[in-house]
């Protein structure tokens, strides 16, 4: 059968593709294109300017990076509400760590970057252990740690800004490489890596299996608890990256920074077609979901819509996206 498929000409294959094209299977892609066209029209000509586009990408990269890790958690059947607090917590502690080194030391910046990633991963590990070893429902466990992380950073900062003493540190977050901001590069890199992890590794396959049916996974000799734990660590890692990029952008952290990141991260995954009931999802979908959220904001700003209405528009898009994906099921 494979042979005959290959023998078919490209044209018939293409025709077949469109004949079998099902809107609900490509809802994210179609929605993305429609939204892009709409934004182009509404925001003409500013929207299409390179600066505007990179700006959108920069804005969404912070929650987008976390959304990539979140996608794995949601596919595995979990959720992480603590990522926003975790990012602020990690960012703050990282600046404290950075300030242990005197002057504008390059070594300090490198060590602090590593520190942020490791610290975030450890926070994620903590969440994962609560869920797997502690057997607490993910929603509850991470609701708890969401409060804990936020409260700790407020306590350590004395509810004020945590300022970095290292001027080199700011080069990470505000840096631009080949015309594209560093956070966007990081977003792309993490997306590519996690896309491969999800689609082409044993771990990725097992994450889907565990999320689709935990019992089946257990009876198929899969180490279910380990498979459930690792996505939390990965998400902690991504939160650590965002903490690094965010805290170095302004070279400071406010203890109330990054509030609501969890919602944007989850929204990006859901708009991208990841099923909240687990077992199904895609990293590239999340990338599109995150960019779509950014485009909506941008479009509304360029269109002069009140900023108070922006959240409503985002909410609407989330609902429409889910309707498109699930309502065609029957």
């Amino acid at each position, binding site marked *: 059968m*494979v042979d005959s498929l290959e023998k078919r000409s490209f044209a018939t294959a293409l025709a077949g593709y469109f004949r*079998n094209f099902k809107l609900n299977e490509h809802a994210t892609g179609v929605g993305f294109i429609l939204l892009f066209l709409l934004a182009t029209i509404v925001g003409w000509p500013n929207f299409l300017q390179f600066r505007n586009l990179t700006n959108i990408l920069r804005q969404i990269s912070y929650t987008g990076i976390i959304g990539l890790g979140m996608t794995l958690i949601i596919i595995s059947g979990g959720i992480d509400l603590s990522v926003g607090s975790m990012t602020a917590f990690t960012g703050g502690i990282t600046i404290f760590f950075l300030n242990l080194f005197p002057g504008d030391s390059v070594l300090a910046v490198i060590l602090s970057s590593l520190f942020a990633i490791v610290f975030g991963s450890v926070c994620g590990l903590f969440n994962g252990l609560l869920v797997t070893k502690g057997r607490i429902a993910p929603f509850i466990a991470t609701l708890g740690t969401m409060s804990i992380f936020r409260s700790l950073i407020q306590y350590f900062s004395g509810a004020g800004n945590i300022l970095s003493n290292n001027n080199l540190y700011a080069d990470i977050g505000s840096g631009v490489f080949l015309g594209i901001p560093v956070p966007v590069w990081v977003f792309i890199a993490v997306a590519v890596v996690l896309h*491969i992890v999800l689609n*082409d*590794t*044993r771990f990725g*396959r*097992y994450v*889907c*299996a565990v999320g*689709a*049916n935990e*019992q*089946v996974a*257990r*009876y*198929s*000799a*899969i*180490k279910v608890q380990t498979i459930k734990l690792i996505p939390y660590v990965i998400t902690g890692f991504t939160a650590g990256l965002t903490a690094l990029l965010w805290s170095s952008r302004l070279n400071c952290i406010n203890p109330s920074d990054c509030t609501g990141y969890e919602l944007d991260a989850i929204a990006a995954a859901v708009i991208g077609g990841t099923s909240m009931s687990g*077992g*199904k999802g895609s990293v590239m979908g999340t990338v599109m979901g995150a960019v779509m959220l950014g485009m909506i904001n941008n479009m509304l700003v360029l269109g002069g819509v009140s900023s108070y209405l922006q959240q409503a528009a985002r909410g609407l898009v989330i609902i429409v996206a889910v309707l498109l994906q699930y309502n065609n099921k029957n």
Partner: protein
Amino acid sequence: MDIPKPPGAAPSADIILSVEGITKEFSTVRVLDSIDLAIERGEIMGLIGENGAGKSTLIKIISGIYQPTAGTIRLNGEVVKIGDYSTAKNLGISIVPQEFNLINTLTVYENIFLGNEIRLKSGLLDKGAMRKQAAAQLLDLRMPVKVDRLIGDLSVAEKQMVEISKALMLHARILIMDEPTTTLTGHELETLFTLMRQLKAQGVTIIFVSHKLREVKTICDRVTVLRDGKLISVDAVDSIDEKDLARKMIGRDFTQVFPTKKYRDGTDIVLHVEHLEVKNLLHDVSFTLRRGEILGFAGLVGAGRTELFEAVMGLRHVESGSIAVEGKTVRIRHARDAVDLGLAYISEDRQGKGIVQNFDIPKNITLISLAEYVKRHLIDKQAEGKKASHYVKAFNIVAASQKMALRYFSGGNQQKVYLARWVDTNPKILVLDEPTRGIDVNAKREIYEFIHMLAAKGISCIVISSEMEEVIGLCSRVYVMKEGMVAGCLTDEHINEEEIMFHATGIKGRKAYG
């Protein structure tokens, strides 16, 4: 019971429901091909066919869950359009599904009235009235179920009674029972048949979907055979025997279900379990398995057979006892350990513990052996697909495309994919727990032949089955379990229904806990 006449009933017609030229296509695949069928008022109509023959699709169309591509449905002579299941229910057509739609945390009467609650004038629930009516109906149907019990505490048979009662509370005139006997044991089956006869006497028309020819012969008035989406025949059951039905179902001559038994028991013992204890479930279980033999485990539902092999596979906590594989005592803490030792366990619960519904065929097959397909940390999908093609061919899996999610396949094909997954782990010992549950005669025979083939290759097979003829037909030795213990081991001419039943019920063999 006083059942009001459905609206629009023509008094003279004795055809209650007819379908004319019903055709159903999914994308381009035709699963039903212009079916014409008339069902008489008050009859029990058997609907049989292999998996994939179109039985489920037909009853889903009758009950409004699917819309036909072409054709009409007449109810009492009038053309009706059944747009969804609630329309069907209003027309007096109800399904008793194979998988029950009951809520475990609610009581019997709450489930019976779910969606049709009786309310007081204030809008609050009239629990008293519901309880009373439910109790009256259960009594009327001679169902020994208390209305205040939680569904979760009921047996499968009792749940089924509640499901039937729920359908009747909606004044169902046509009751479609989708393989209602799959999970029932002997006397529960008798109770169900008594109930069905009683409903028939009350004028309820029943469509009885089944795989089991003997049951169809016992309970039905007429029987319809479907094959490959086509209507093959409609006969009065008295005028046709089981063999003819089987022939019509598979479309070719049907000689014998079981391959000839070949005794090729080696002398070396590959699995030796001694004094196994699992809290509240298993007590002092010992048995041996020889190389290349087909060993049976019989017993009533709940005797601990499934639990025994879950324990052996490391899926349950073992309190004490020893397991030796090929003479070496082993510790199995996780199913992975068992797999690495060459053990394989095919669960009885295909949907819940077996297949991944939204995975395609290759992903399902390589789930356990995935490490074999990893090259430099990445899955070699080409190798995966090739292996899947191999199994599709070897196991005669009927698939329009390998890339389709498994939930679109029939039970028999799902079971074969599930089997292929475990065969791909190269097991030395293969445990098959109710391997033919819910699959058709043809697929059954293929699976029996397959078990023989494995045994011939020196793979030791254990068959757990509640269908006695299956263990009798397949196995060279049979252990009978009762209440978490081994009641006895039967060999040679002792493997017969009587001996198995005597051991399973405690008339013979080791007595209960002590």
